Each structure stands twice: as structure tokens, then as C-alpha cells.
């Protein structure tokens, strides 16, 4: 755990391309070594036995990272982006991974959140906490309109509706002048209950970047979303959603209301995307249609696939890889869509479960199977 975050620190710190390359090589070697020495399995077992420790460890790790980079704007911005994208992917995970509702407009819902936040924060005096929630709520509302045709159909049609919405959304933004057109809108910084997140501050004489505030906020959001998603997965709601994904007919026969759970999954997921979008928009201070293209939606889906669809644990490492690598390796920045597209194709062909595959549902956590010994 500590090693992983120390590694991340080094990666974020590394300036030259060579250092980044060396660190990557190191990571690959360590992974390979772990597999050869079979240390991976006990590690994985410990991790799954005590998920709480792992979660707290992750949160502490992020805090440690934030502390280490307290005045480096760019590194903190990256950490924030990873956390917020993780929130969106957690939302997509409910849709793709549990209920099996496809959504290829993740970036569009993210954008709905940003634009809602931008409009409300500039034109009304609504408290910003409500603005963030409104971002999520509007995304969820648009999503629930969109799911209406999806419910009557299945499979490919849902894909079409969401793709059409993603493209429609971007072209709408580009031609709509009240929403800034292609140039986008500026957003004032976030102000939560009198706490101005947009201002840096000094703590015990040390200057701290304003992004540190956003790291805290995103971390809280991400943790809340994670706990929420895990709770859903573990509850009977998750069970019903799993059933719908694997076999709709069987689920309907057993009296599971298919439409209800699909709508719920879609709404939850889009709410998370909108919320994250609102925070992201207010953090970067400006929104533009070009941040919410169809390719960005596909990037979100590739994070999900890379991490292992249906497994919330996989999202954080996957988001880290997908978002931080291109920033660090400048020469792949230009090629990132191409690389990720190829990566996802290979994953789907050769390792369809992703980096951290979802494990079989553990019905009685903490109780070892009797015949295991």
C-alpha cells in the first residue's frame, strides 16, 4: 500500500521522460516478480479479507500525496482529476457492471453537471453545495428521460440512444450561444459554507495550493461514492441488478422489476457523473464543449474495462494509469486515444475481465466456506 503511493509520488514527481520510463519499467518488473514469487495471492487475500483497511489506506495515501505536493498545482490537479473520474466510473460501474445498462454518454452527463454548475453559479445566488447537487440532479433527470426509450428495447438500441445523446449534447453546446458556444463558459470558484475553495491559504507558515482544497473535496466525494456503490452491490438491490444483467427473462420470471432497477441504476450512475462534473467544472474554472466529446466517453468506458468491469476496486488503479500516464509521457499525449483504443481491444480479446476481475459474490463475508479446509 505504502509502496504503491510512494511509487505514485515518485511518478508525479518525475520530470524527465527518462525517469518516467524507468519508473514504468520498475513497475512492470515488480508486477512480474510478484507473480513469479507468488506473493500476489496472499496480498490479494489479505486485501479482500480486510477491505476497510485497504480503503482507509487508500484515503490516507491520497492525503499523504496531497501533503507531499501541497504547493505543486499540476500534481494536485491530476490527483483531483483521477478522483473525480473515478467517481464517474463508479457511476458507470453501476450501469455497465451491475444492471447491464450501457451508457456511452458518460462524458456528456459529466458535461451536463459542469454546465449546470456554471449556469447556476453565475446567474443565481444559490449556495454552492446546492449547485453541486443540482449538477447531479439535472444529469440524473436528463438521464431518466433518456432511459425511457431504452427500457422498451434492449442491447444495441440502448447503445444507439446514448451515443446519439452524446453527439447531440456536444453539437447542441457548440451552436448554443447562451451557453457560450464553442468557447464555453467561465465558472467562479467553489464556496462551500463560507469556505472558499478557490483560494490558496497558509498553514503554519507553509503556502498551500488551492487545489489541495479540491483534493479534499474530491476525496470525500470519491469515498462516499465508493461506499455507496459497495453498499448497493452488497445489498439486495445489487443482487437484483446482477440478476437482470445476467438473464432478463429469468429475472422477470422471479418477479424482479426489470424496468425499475434499470432506471435506478441509470439514474444513480448519471447522478454521480453529474456531481463529479460540477466539481470538476468549478475546479478548473471553465467549461467548453470540447471536454465532453464522444471519445472522452469512450475513455471513461476504457477505464472501466481496464479495471475490471463490475469491480469498484479496479477503477482507481485504472483511472490512475489512464489519466496520469499521458500527462507524464508527453509524447503519448497526442496518441492517447489510439493507444487506449488498442489497449481495450486487446483486453477484450485476451483478458476480458480486466486488471482486477470481479470476484464471485461472497454471500457471508468473514465466514470461511466450511469445506475449504
Amino acid at each position, binding site marked *: 500500500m505504502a509502496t504503491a503511493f510512494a511509487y505514485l509520488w515518485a511518478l508525479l514527481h518525475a520530470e524527465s521522460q527518462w525517469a518516467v520510463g524507468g519508473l514504468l519499467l520498475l513497475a512492470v518488473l515488480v508486477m512480474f516478480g510478484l507473480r513469479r514469487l507468488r506473493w500476489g495471492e496472499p496480498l490479494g487475500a489479505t486485501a479482500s479479507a480486510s477491505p476497510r483497511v485497504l480503503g482507509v489506506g487508500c484515503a490516507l495515501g491520497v492525503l499523504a500525496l496531497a501533503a507531499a505536493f501541497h504547493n505543486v498545482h499540476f500534481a494536485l490537479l491530476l490527483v483531483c482529476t483521477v478522483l473525480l473520474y473515478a467517481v464517474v466510473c463508479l457511476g458507470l460501474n453501476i450501469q455497465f457492471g451491475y444492471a447491464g445498462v*450501457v451508457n456511452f454518454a458518460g462524458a456528456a452527463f459529466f458535461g451536463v453537471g459542469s454546465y449546470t454548475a456554471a449556469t447556476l453559479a453565475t446567474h443565481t445566488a444559490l449556495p454552492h453545495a446546492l449547485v453541486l447537487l443540482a449538477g447531479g440532479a439535472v444529469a440524473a433527470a436528463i438521464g431518466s428521460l433518456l432511459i*425511457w426509450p431504452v427500457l422498451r428495447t434492449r442491447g*444495441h438500441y440502448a447503445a*444507439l440512444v446514448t451515443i446519439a445523446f452524446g453527439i447531440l449534447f456536444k453539437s447542441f453546446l457548440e451552436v448554443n450561444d447562451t451557453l457560450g458556444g464553442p468557447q464555453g463558459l467561465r465558472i467562479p470558484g467553489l464556496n462551500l459554507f463560507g469556505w472558499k475553495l478557490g483560494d490558496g491559504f497558509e498553514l503554519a507558515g507553509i503556502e498551500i495550493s488551492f487545489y489541495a482544497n479540491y483534493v479534499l473535496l474530491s476525496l470525500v466525494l470519491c469515498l462516499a461514492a465508493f461506499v455507496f456503490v459497495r453498499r448497493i452491490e452488497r445489498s439486495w438491490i445489487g443482487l437484483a441488478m446482477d440478476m437482470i444483467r445476467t438473464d432478463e*427473462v429469468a429475472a422477470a420470471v422471479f418477479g424482479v422489476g426489470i424496468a425499475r432497477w434499470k432506471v435506478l441504476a441509470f439514474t444513480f450512475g448519471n447522478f454521480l457523473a453529474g456531481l463529479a462534473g460540477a466539481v470538476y467544472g468549478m475546479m478548473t474554472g471553465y467549461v467548453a464543449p470540447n471536454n465532453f466529446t464522444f471519445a472522452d466517453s469512450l475513455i471513461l468506458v476504457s477505464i472501466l474495462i481496464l479495471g475490471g468491469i463490475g469491480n469498484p476496486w479496479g477503477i482507481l488503479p485504472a483511472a490512475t494509469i489512464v489519466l496520469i500516464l499521458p500527462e507524464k509521457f508527453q509524447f503519448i499525449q497526442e496518441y492517447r486515444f*489510439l493507444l487506449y483504443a*488498442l489497449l481495450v481491444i486487446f483486453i477484450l480479446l485476451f483478458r476480458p475481465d480486466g486488471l482486477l476481475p470481479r470476484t464471485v459474490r461472497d454471500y457471508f463475508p468473514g465466514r470461511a466456506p466450511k469445506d475449504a479446509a
Partner: protein
Amino acid sequence: MGLDILSQYVVNTLMLGMIYAMVAVGFTLFFGVLDVIQFSHGDVLMLGGFTALASYLGASAAGIANPWLLLAIMLLASTAVTAALGAFVARFLVLPLKNAPPLNTLLVTLMFGLAVREAVRLFYPNGSNPKPFPRLLPDTSFTLGTLALRADSLMLLAAGLVVVVGVHLLITRTKLGLAIRAVAQDGETARVMGIDFQRVVLLTFGLGSALAAMAGVMNGLYYNEINFGLGLLLGVIGFSAAILGGLGNFLGAILGGFLFAALQTFGAVVLPMVAPAITSAYKDVFAFTMVILLMAWKPTGLIAERSSERV
């Protein structure tokens, strides 16, 4: 509105409808034989357009100046490249995932489309900017009463009609068409009857993708411009058209293509007259909204699938 403007809108709609119909026929063919959606189809089309452009540049550099010969070379090169690419997609991306969840097939083709798009943007010289497409057809216009009609539009329309009718005849009248229809109806039984399943699937994907290349060339000749992002929009439009008509249905796809073009023209022309706040820039927004509404109304398309599995 004058009659000549009206006729221009009609020709434009027919032209767009023809291009969309050709793309939609590809979707419908693929769906017929394998029950999959090939989401990279639009990008295959775009690649076809770029291949045509590259072969045009190559051929003119080699000293060929006859526009008809150039056009033939372009068509030959682009259909060959896209047919090979379509067969490649079927062989290495779609068939290996035949038993995987449908979501995986969808994702693989989506990602392949993204890869093709990005590859053209990055590796075609200066590929991220729109490219001028050569104007090869005679651009004389002749008048019919009070109507002024451009010869190139009419030629493109006629060519599109010939291609679509040709494919229709190929599917309904030839032995290969019979095999395609057999596989579409029931792959297992077709195999028992001695049809080489994989060969038919690859040929179908090649055929559909070659159609896409022709649509790409038509699109280029009509607009005299081509850019790497055109495949995404055309692909989604073609897919919408195929679904509007009813997936797996040849005539439905053509109907859907013209319907979508009509919706777009309606959005661009009639809406701004009715409601001045809505400018013609909203035509795609309007068309896609209508598609979503139409799907909510008739989920199986206007001409229903033969066998539809719905819960």
C-alpha cells in the same frame, strides 16, 4: 420559397438520403449475418474516402488526367481497402468474440473505430485538418423548365441508385445472396447445409464495407471536402437509419436513410421558419431527438425485425 430553391432542397435530401441508405445497408447486412453491430462502420467509410483521396493524389502524380479513369482508380482502391478492412474486423474482432457478451463485441468495434479515426488523424499527412476532395464530375448545370439542376448531383444520385439496386439483386438473385440470407436466417442450419459460414460472413462484411467506401467517395465528391471526424457522425446516422427501418431489413434500411435525411432537411429549413429562435445549426440536434422519440414509439423500427426478442 421559390421552386428552384425547393428543388435544391429536394436534391440535397435525396443525395444525403442515398449516402445514409448505403451506410445503413451495411449495418443491416452485418446485423443479419452475425447479429452484431459493427460500430466502426462509419470510420471504415471515412478511411474509404481517405484512400480514394490518396489514390487520386498518387494517380495524378503518375500523370493520369482523365477524370473518369481517376474516378475508377479511386473507387477500386477504396473499395478494395475497406472490403479488406471489413473482413479483417469480422475475422479478428467479431468472430473471436462470438460467445462473449454482446457488450464486448460492441465495445471492440467502437474502440476499433476510434483507433481508425485516430490513426488517420495522426498518420495521414496533416490529417487533423479537413482536406479538399477533388471535383471530378462535370459541374455543368442544365435547366429543366425553371429548375436548374447540377449534372454532378444527378450523376451521383443515379450511381447510388445503381449500386443499391445492384446489391439488392445480388442478395435476392445470386447464389452468394442465397447463402447470405441462409446464414442470416439460421447460421447453424446453413452450416449443416454445407455453406461455409466463415466465408459467407467475411464476404458479407467485405461487401458492406465496400458499400461504405462508395458512400465515402460520394460524400467526398458531393461536398468536395473530407475530414477524419466524418465517420463518427455518418456511422451513427447510418445506424440510426438502419434501426429506424428495422435492423436486418434491407428495404427498411434504405427507407430509414431517406427518412433521416428528410428529418435533417426539415430541421434545417422548416423549423427556423416556424420558430426563429431555432436556427438551422440545430438540424442534427433535431434529427437525433426525433430518432430517439421514434425509437420510443416504435422500438423495433418501422418495418419490424423478423424475430425480435424483447422482454
